[in-house]
Each structure stands twice: as C-alpha cells, then as structure tokens.
C-alpha cells in the first residue's frame, strides 16, 4: 500500500502543477490568492519524504503525511488537510489489517474519518462553499461503493464524478465559511479554490489507482 501512496502523491503533484493557474485564480477571486502555493508547498515537502514513508506502515505513513502537511501548508487548508490525513491514519491504525493491507471498506471508513475531522475542525457543513462540498459526497459515495463491494475501477469512476459534481456545486453557493464568507453575496459565481484543488487531487489519485489496477 505504501507504494500506492507514493504513486498517489506523484500523481497529485503532477495534476496540481497542471492546474496551477486555475486554482490560483479561484483563490485570488474570492480568497487571498495563496491556496495553490500553500498546497503545492505541502505536496513538494511530502514528495521528499518518500524514503521515510516506504519504511513505515500505511497508517503511520498517513499520519506522518498529515503532520508534515499541517506544519508546511499553513492557512486554513493546511490544518484541515493535515488533520484529514492524521485522522485517516489514526483510523487505519485502529482497524485490523490482514497481511498489512486493508479492506476497501476500512480505507473508505478511514477516508470518511478524515473528512469528519475536517468537518469538526472547520465547523462547516455541506453547502457552505468549502472543500467539504467535494469531500462529503466523495466520502459518502466511497463508503457506499465499498459496502457494495464495487471494483476499484468502478469506485474510482464514481468518486471522480462525485468530486466534480461537488466542486461545480460550489459555484453558485454563498460562502459562509472560510475567507470567502467575508464577501457575502460577492462570493457567488466563483468555484471555491479548496473544492477545486480537492477535486483535482481526487481525480489524480483515482486515475493513478486506476492505472495500477
């Protein structure tokens, strides 16, 4: 599983770099313009952890990634996404693994635990024009499909669709959390930067797993 993580990180890095202008513009429009830089800084540092990550179990790897992201990304997204990985790793740590791999339901539940940590830290719900508008539907879809024993390929497809739908939904929402909330009505008409970057990252991971499958 660690190699999957490494592959996923590389895929994320590549995908983010490709979408730099788009993501940066969104945070400039209704935020403070640093979201891309923040996320990219974190991913770059995590990329450099490869050796360290290959030597530990997946749950520990995720927690290490979370802590590193929390201390390098900064901003709202750093503490949220860092917390996501820490909670994800912690969940796996408590789950029973077989041959040091996890069942898909366990991974889905870990993902959901991560999303739940964002929800609690950010005190936000669906529809507040944040990254949660992507993450909550994706977590729900993941849990559902995992319970249905869907194939990895099908799961990847479904998660990508859910992510894109959630990302697009933020466009017409009124922001009530995050920096964009200060804009009131003026926040409408722009996609949320964090939602966009999460969508890009989820697509990248799904594609990299798809390839691997």
């Amino acid at each position: 599983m660690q190699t999957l993580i490494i592959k996923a990180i590389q895929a994320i890095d590549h995908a983010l770099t490709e979408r730099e202008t788009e993501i940066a513009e969104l945070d400039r429009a209704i935020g403070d313009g640093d979201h891309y830089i923040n996320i990219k800084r974190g991913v770059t540092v995590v990329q450099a952890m490869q050796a360290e990550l290959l030597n530990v179990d997946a749950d520990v790897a995720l927690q290490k990634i979370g802590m590193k992201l929390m201390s390098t990304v900064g901003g709202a997204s750093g503490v949220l996404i860092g917390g996501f990985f820490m909670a994800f790793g912690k969940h796996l740590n408590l789950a029973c693994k077989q041959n040091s791999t996890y069942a898909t339901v366990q991974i889905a539940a870990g993902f959901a635990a991560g999303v739940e940590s964002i929800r609690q830290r950010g005190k936000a719900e669906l529809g507040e024009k944040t990254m949660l508008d992507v993450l909550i539907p994706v977590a729900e879809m993941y849990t559902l499909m995992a319970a249905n024993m869907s194939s990895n390929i099908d799961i990847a497809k479904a998660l990508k669709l859910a992510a894109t739908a959630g990302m697009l939904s933020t466009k017409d929402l009124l922001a009530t959390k995050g920096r964009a909330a200060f804009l009131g009505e003026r926040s409408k008409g722009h996609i949320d930067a964090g939602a966009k970057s999460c969508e890009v990252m989820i697509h990248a991971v799904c594609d990299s797993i798809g390839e691997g499958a």
Partner: protein
Amino acid sequence: MKKLINQVDDILTESLAGFALAHQDLVSVFYEPNFVTRRKQSTNKVALISGGGSGHEPLHTGYVGLGMLDAACPGYVFTSPSPDQMLAAAEMVEANKGVLFIVKNYAGDVMNFEVAAEMLTCKSATVLVSDDVAVENSTYTTGQRGVAGTVIVEKCVGALAETGANLADCKRLGDKVNSRMASMGVALSSCTVPAAGKPTFDLADNELEMGVGIHGEPGRARQKMRDADLIVAEMVAALLKDLKAKQLCYSENNPQNISENISAIKEVLLLVNGFGATPQMELYLLFNSAAKLLQAAGITISRSLVGNYTTALDMAGASITICAIDAEIKKLWDAPVNTAALHW
C-alpha cells in the same frame, strides 16, 4: 512584479534573519519552526503569543518585547502559521502563568491556533480580534475579520500581563478592547503576493475598494475615487455605527458594566494605519479629516497613532481604527513598551 528579493521561497527566512540582526538587543529569532521571542524572556507573567501570515509587518514580530508580546509566529506571506510554531514558541516562553494566544479572526489562523491550544500541556486562552466592520455579518457566522486594531489589543494586554495579571484577566481585557473598537480600510491599489507574482485584484485608475481586507480581500464595494474627506466620512460613519452596536452588546455580556458602556462614546484612540505604499503625508491628512468629524460629533481623541502598523505588503491605502477607551485602557496604552515597532 518587481520586489527587492532573491528567491521567492527564501523571502521569509531572509527577512527574519535581517530582523534578527537589526534588533539583536530586543529579540531572538528561531527557525523551523519559525518564531520570534524577546531577547530577555520574562518570568512570572502570562505568556502572550500572537502570529499570522507574514506581509503585515510590523505585525506581529515588530511587537515582541517588553510591555507587549512574548512571542510571535510568522507564517508564509498571507498564510497562517502552523501549530508546531505556536507549540515551540509556547514551550520557550511559558512562565507558569499560562499562555494567551492573540489571534486575528480568519478561519486559517483560528484553526491552527486551536490545534496548538489543544496540544498545549499548560493552560491557555485565546483572544480573537475581529475589528473590521467592512463586512457586515448579518447572515454569516464567521464574524468580522481581525485587522489593525490587533495592535491596540496586543499593546494593552501586553501592558496588563506585565503587571502580573492572571490568564483570565488578560483574556478579559483582550476581549474588552476588541469589543470596544472598530476598523475599516480602503485600497487605492492591490498588493502583490510574491509567490503569486501579480496583483491580487485590479482597480481602475478612478476606482477604490472600500472596506478592503489586509490581504487584499474585497470589501464592501468598488467605488469611484473621490476626495479624502468624503472617503473618510463614509469610513467614520461605519465605524461609529458599529461601535455603538458593539458597546450595547458588550454590556449585555457584562451586566455590571452596563451603565459605563451603553453611554455614548466620549473618548477614543484614533489609529490611522497605512497599508504599505501610502505616504505619511496622506496618513496625517486622513487623521486630520477623521479628527474633524469626531470632534464635530463631540468625541475626544485622547490617544492617537499614525503610521504603518498593520500593512498589506505594498498595497496603497489605509485603515482607520477607533477604539473607545476608558481609564483602564488608557493607562495600559500609556504604559512603557519596548519593541522594534512601538517604543515609549
């Protein structure tokens, strides 16, 4: 973008290194995680720690020193610092009376300081600064942004902590100052975040952004450029309206103070703050303009501060902060302070 820098990624470290060299007598600077402490750490007092994205200098590093902060945690430009910075700073400066975090009300700052507070082993409290009235928060739950009034909170709480006051009292005073002040900014040009390489927003030659945030966030409205007196009149009206509402609200929470607080605002501290690219001549002109309005409203300006105290990189523009002061605040404001940016 033209800036006097080397590699964009090194700006913060190189700038902190210069700050450390220039103020060796006042501060110590630590790296990875980045934080600034007083050169001589104080004992037996509540440790005051603030922090936030860089680019607002002298906020917060310039306010570390006797009578003000014990430590400051600078994040990357306009990006809130991370919990490891606050934890390392707290470990260094905590002196048995607990830690008070002074945090500007932005989701990122709030959440990062929150994580730090949860991980701290000593007792702690947090004062949230939310003085920016630009965004009226009718339907929104996020509250107002924290801007230049932060300097007043840090100065007054700093002075109180120096007397040996306990954590609860420092927290009370911070909340009190916050509840009695209001700020609003106006931008004539955008700032340019180094890593972004281009202006955060565009303003036409005859436009201004009324209510701009200190990260170049949009405010109330894009307006036509006009005379300073007219701009200031709109700002001061908004500030007084907010202050009156706030004072009522404050007294509700502190029933014993009702009579003092619901009365009309009589005495204020007036702060005219430059955002980074506005000449002092203009700041004093704005001060004059605001002072005339306050005097006409029967309000006495008994303390004043004019200059670049909470900046937004190279943004042209300024903010006005009015803080309704009482005897306690006045005394704390006047108390000695010895930091890189405030000194009396």
